[in-house]
């Protein structure tokens, strides 16, 4: 009996705090995305041809570790019996990727970059089996990195 009470308690706590954290996070993501919308992130590898200015490059990256709440994990484990879309995990991964990309953009913005080339996103699942069930995701890490290009001074001599 006491086990059920604990489970219900954890589920309620997870639901309440998880929902609140997610709404807040999405709100801040959308707000910051609107601020940084002018900085393009591309997956192209060729730099644009700019002759008048000297172009400098630097590696920038952004990473985030985000964890799922107990309620969503519970729902997902129930859904895994029947298969199909796990919408609870979808929102977790979406949040993590967008947050990592935002941090990448912020890093590029600090350097005054005008474009980020060859943006790559990598996802790694950490603390795989420290949770209660074997093989449950728990928390994921997303890292985004790319080459930020900055225009500095006017080129003195034409090398190309």
């Amino acid at each position, binding site marked *: 009996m006491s086990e059920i009470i604990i489970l219900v308690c*954890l589920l309620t*706590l*997870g639901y309440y*705090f*998880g929902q609140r*954290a*997610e709404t807040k*996070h999405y709100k801040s993501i959308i707000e910051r995305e609107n601020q940084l919308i002018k900085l393009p992130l591309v997956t192209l*590898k*060729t*730099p644009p041809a700019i002759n008048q200015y*000297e*172009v*400098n*490059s*630097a*590696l920038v*990256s952004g*990473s*985030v*570790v*985000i*964890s*799922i*709440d*107990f309620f*969503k*994990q519970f729902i997902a484990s129930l859904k895994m019996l029947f298969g199909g879309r796990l919408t609870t995990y979808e929102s977790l991964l979406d949040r993590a990727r967008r*947050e990592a990309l935002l941090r990448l953009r912020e890093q590029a913005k600090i350097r005054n970059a005008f474009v980020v*080339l*060859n943006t*790559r996103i*990598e996802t*790694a699942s*950490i*603390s*795989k*089996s*420290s*949770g209660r069930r074997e093989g449950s995701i*728990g*928390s994921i*890490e997303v*890292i985004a*990195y*790319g*080459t930020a*290009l900055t225009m500095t001074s006017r080129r003195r001599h034409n*090398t190309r």
Partner: protein
Amino acid sequence: MILTNIEQVPGRKILQHYGLVQGNTIRAKHVGKDILASIKNIFGGELSAYTELLSESRKEATDRMIQQAEAMGANAIVNVRYSTSSVAQGAAELYAYGTAIRVE
């Protein structure tokens, strides 16, 4: 040291290739932080302690790669890639590799 993850350094000519350079680090999680993280697993949200730990270790792997490139006499590394793999339970390897080159 210029790092890029494309095949060239924009605006500069590549003079010489030195070959592959790499750096790695294996980090285990702190027990106290692990307990905190498992509590955070109930409520959800960002685990900022882990974010810090991982980006710090990634920086260390990058620094080791840069050291190797400096020893070769390179002044830039192109096509830098990162990868993460979990070696043992509770430990992760962060790995950075790229091609050391000399640019003008």
